[in-house]
């Protein structure tokens, strides 16, 4: 796979030659994230976010494994065991705040990664499989994050679990039976907490597995780039190492700065105060809100307030899941052969309207269900579906794209004021 001019791994040390014959693991790494992977030379900083998402997952797994050594998944003691981590475990506060804010950082990074993919058309042929696997990772992340938020067994944990598992009771006829079976009881309790803990520990490793498939699928066509134009020759690419390892290190540093700012100085800013109150099935919080990364989807759920053939709740649940599942069909909904929105005047406008729309949905989802926010979420939810299911397919058929550069190198050189193509990017 990859391009014919990709460098080949040539071990120099006898030990490495021996290892390469027995188990070519260094060769695999060299071809995946080393000098053996040619990458377009014109990637901007948005292309850092794949590596950053991997770093965020690693941080979550490392802090999570250590936290699990101190946490007790029992409804009677779970809350106190988390507080004992905060008070009595050496640097336990660091582990817990790193894990809780690490989840937020993971979503910030992944949302930016998805933003990049949407703007530059990374989901289009020949990278459909990369996109499909990415949506699978996103779904797994949401499930993992939800179950992780339940584990401290505070008020928002309990009532969040109550609301989310309540989705299943919207299924006609068998809904309640399924919900009770999933929870292991009539309401979230010890049985639910235990299975959430088990799955919360399992799913990150499933995510890691799907990430391997995601990168594998990416390396067959190679990375997209801001022009969306295919790689034409060696002059269009540079080896991943050292060019993009160096650039990713800069991105990683900035990521860690933001992460440290949250973790050390505003560790509870993105959380909800009610989760510092132990779970109490007899006392419902005034406003049940999920974590910020679920707000847009929560707003879509709450926007459906009218029965029409189906009950409103079922419409809401269908729409909420549909809002993510429709992403699986995006490569075929947007049939324009032009990838980058830089060259798509109409699609670019629609894209930015969508970004504002999703931000408004998030605002609605995090706010109390007053008439103003319900009405705003009904309008913005409708636009969300119209964008993906009607507007974008229509634009793709009618739009006249701007002229594309002939090659990546031409685009780069014209940006720098020159026009003569050079033989190689590595001059």
């Amino acid at each position, binding site marked *: 796979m990859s391009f014919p001019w990709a460098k080949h791994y040539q071990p120099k040390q006898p030990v490495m030659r021996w290892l390469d014959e027995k188990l070519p693991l260094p060769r695999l790494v060299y071809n995946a994230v080393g000098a053996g992977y040619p990458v377009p030379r014109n990637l901007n900083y948005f292309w850092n976010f794949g590596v950053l998402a991997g770093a965020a997952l690693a941080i979550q797994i490392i802090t999570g494994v250590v936290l699990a050594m101190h946490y007790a998944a029992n409804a009677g003691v779970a809350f106190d065991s988390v507080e004992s981590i905060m008070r009595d475990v050496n640097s336990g*506060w660091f582990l817990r705040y790193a894990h809780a804010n690490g989840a937020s950082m993971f979503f910030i990074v992944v949302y930016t990664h998805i933003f990049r993919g949407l703007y530059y058309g990374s989901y289009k042929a020949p990278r459909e499989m990369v996109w499909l696997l990415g949506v699978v990772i996103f779904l797994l992340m949401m499930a993992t994050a939800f179950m992780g938020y339940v584990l401290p067994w505070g008020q928002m944990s309990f009532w969040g679990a109550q609301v989310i598992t309540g989705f299943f009771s919207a299924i006609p006829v068998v809904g309640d039976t399924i919900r009770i079976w999933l929870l292991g009881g009539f309401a979230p309790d010890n049985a639910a907490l235990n299975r959430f803990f088990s799955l919360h520990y399992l799913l990150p490793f499933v995510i890691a597995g799907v990430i391997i498939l995601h990168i594998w699928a990416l390396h067959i066509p190679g990375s997209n780039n801001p022009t969306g134009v295919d790689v034409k020759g060696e002059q269009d690419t540079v080896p991943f190492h*050292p*060019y993009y390892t160096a650039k990713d*290190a800069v991105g990683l540093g900035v990521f860690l700065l933001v992460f*440290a700012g949250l973790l050390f100085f505003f560790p509870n800013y993105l959380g909800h105060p009610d989760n510092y109150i132990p779970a109490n099935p007899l006392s419902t919080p005034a406003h049940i809100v999920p974590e910020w990364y679920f707000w847009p989807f929560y707003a879509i759920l709450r926007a459906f307030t009218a029965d029409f053939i189906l009950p409103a709740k079922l419409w809401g649940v269908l729409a909420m899941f549909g809002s993510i599942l429709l992403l699986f069909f995006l490569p075929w909904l947007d049939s324009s052969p032009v990838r980058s929105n830089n060259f798509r005047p109409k699609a670019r406008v629609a894209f930015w309207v969508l970004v504002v729309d999703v931000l408004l949905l998030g605002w609605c989802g995090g706010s109390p269900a007053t008439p103003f926010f319900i009405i705003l979420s*009904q309008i913005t939810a*409708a636009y969300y579906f119209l964008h993906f299911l009607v507007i974008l397919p229509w634009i793709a058929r009618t739009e006249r794209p701007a002229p594309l550069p002939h090659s990546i190198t031409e685009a780069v050189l014209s940006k720098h004021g020159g026009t003569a193509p050079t033989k190689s990017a590595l001059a």
Partner: protein
Amino acid sequence: MVRGIAFLVGAAFTFVLAIALWGSVSGLISEPPAPTAEEEFHLHPKPAHLASDGIFGRFDRRQLQRGFQVYKEVCAACHSLRLVAFRDLKDLGYNDPELKAIANQWVIEQPSINPETGEATTRKNVPADRFPSPFANEVAARAANNNALPPDLSLMAKARHDGGNYIYSLIGPDAYRPQPAELLRKFPDAKTPTGLHYNPYFANLNIAMPPPLTQDGQVQYADGTLASRDQMAKDVAAFLTWTAEPKLESRHAAGIGAFVFILIFCFLAWGAYQNVWRDVKH
């Protein structure tokens, strides 16, 4: 095919949302939401200006000791502090003999078992114990408090929005006040029920807790600070900020160290990036 089905799905969701929107808008017009007393009269907490605020914040240990004294002499009569141990008070600047004395002289004793008969009894506290609850259980607590449950205070500063300032405001000198005449004129049904107390910093304006700090000098501070009601409210807010986040100082210190370390990393990475890419236009 995909686009045809997508169009139908999109149209269906939009249609149902349009029906819902119609219902919401006509409901809003026919029955505009009535303002509530909470919306109009609830006050956001006043800033307590604690030493622990901000990214360089550190605890004022003398203030924490004063706040602990207020907790001990006022709050502890009803409110538990079950996540905090006597040994933790070492962070406030007490030495070991003082800790032992504080634990030993604590009015409420630890539930225990008589080693000879096995019968339930109580014993003196030791530094390893967590603060004992003033009530044996929730029923006893409610029975003694007009059916209201005094919440545990260990995490109060994190369990309420803007917690430190909230505690200060809720028990500060201007918190408990007569219900404003304007409120009763606008919302005649919102009169504070008997047994509750009007307090605009409390979420629903009517709190079960009677005013805890009623007069200046209610506590005789060991360090000679004048115990005004404002001072006592501020000190106990500082103390409860510590009980909720005892590792705040290590966190701030580690954060500053981490920032410096990561900044150096950023500069090195930036230099490496510039160096690697110097001959490649991109």
